[in-house]
């Protein structure tokens, strides 16, 4: 008689009958046993998992908190939208105003140019500016320092650069005024940043008196540093120091002061082009 062998099936262990839930239960029980039997190994094993969980929970907590109060968020959104619109309008208005002012400034206040080289990098009593004919600089424009102090005259212009010959340059002559009584004087460049002028001894000019140069009105160009007098001469020589330290001038403003200045300039240095 032929025996038929049927495979015995265990209701608990047969792979076909064990469900996913049973597998999960086995995993949970094994984990529990691991914690009970080898707690150190268990915590070592699960510490990275807990760290990852903490990082994820913090990130998700922050993310979900941002949606916590929708009414508040909607209110804030509306407020920010209104502010954005107001700021955009204000920005447009300011832009328009800036354009208008810049055009006005260019017309009335001249061209601002940076100083590329000053003594001793440049020849004495000259400044090299980073502004040339491309920026609207022309020969004869007057250069002003901080506070509107006249510094010199443009004597050479290239496309992107120009040169200012300072009033202190040897050979430069300029009509001006000195003292409280606005005594007319002829100011002559003495070189190395200094100027001189001759006035009558009886004028009573003393050290510290301000020297003015023509510009739009009278502009302070320097002050009397010393009065040299010769007893045999009826005049005294004024040693004039410029109002600005020429070695520290970084920016100048160039303006065309018109024929008044050019007429006041009697000559320029023979070395200029």
């Amino acid at each position, binding site marked *: 008689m032929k025996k038929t062998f049927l495979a015995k099936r265990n209701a608990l262990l047969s792979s076909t009958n064990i469900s*996913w*839930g049973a597998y*999960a239960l086995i995993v949970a029980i094994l984990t529990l046993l691991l914690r009970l039997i080898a707690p150190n190994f268990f915590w070592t094993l699960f510490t990275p998992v807990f760290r990852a969980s903490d990082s994820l*929970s913090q990130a998700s907590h922050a993310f979900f908190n941002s949606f916590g109060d929708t009414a508040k968020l909607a209110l804030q959104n509306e407020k920010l939208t209104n502010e954005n619109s107001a700021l955009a309008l204000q920005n447009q208005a300011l832009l328009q105003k800036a354009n208008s002012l810049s055009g006005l400034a260019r017309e009335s206040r001249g061209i601002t140019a940076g100083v590329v080289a000053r003594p001793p990098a440049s020849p004495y009593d000259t400044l090299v500016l980073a502004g040339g004919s491309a920026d609207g600089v022309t020969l004869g424009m007057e250069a002003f320092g901080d506070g509107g102090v006249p510094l010199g005259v443009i004597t050479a212009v290239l496309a992107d650069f120009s040169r200012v010959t300072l009033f202190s340059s040897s050979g430069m002559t300029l009509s001006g005024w000195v003292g409280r009584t606005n005594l007319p004087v002829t100011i002559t460049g003495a070189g190395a940043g200094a100027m001189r002028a001759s006035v009558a001894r009886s004028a009573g000019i003393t050290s510290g008196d301000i020297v003015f140069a023509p510009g739009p009105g009278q502009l302070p160009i320097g002050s009397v540093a010393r009065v040299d007098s010769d007893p045999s001469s009826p005049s005294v020589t004024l040693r004039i120091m410029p109002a600005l330290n020429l070695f520290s001038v970084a920016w100048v403003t160039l303006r065309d002061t018109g024929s008044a200045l050019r007429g006041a300039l009697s000559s320029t240095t023979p070395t200029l082009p």
Partner: protein
Amino acid sequence: MMRGTLTILSLVSVVFFPWPLTALLAAGASSVEPLVPLAVGLFADTLYYAPQAGALPLFTLCGILLTAISFFVRSRLKTGSIGR
């Protein structure tokens, strides 16, 4: 496939997700795998239960309760006319 996914997701959520989501997943999985709530509860207490607190292993107890309810409902469905 769905059973496996639900089971694994329930176990993973014990570690990475907040407990309400884990409970929801376990409850959902119990409709197809009654043992999953028990496994999830046991796994959660294995990870987070602190014996010195003197508290009951609530996750396991809740899992047992949910598993029992699931088995009961399934037995009623099998004996009833709905499953035929």
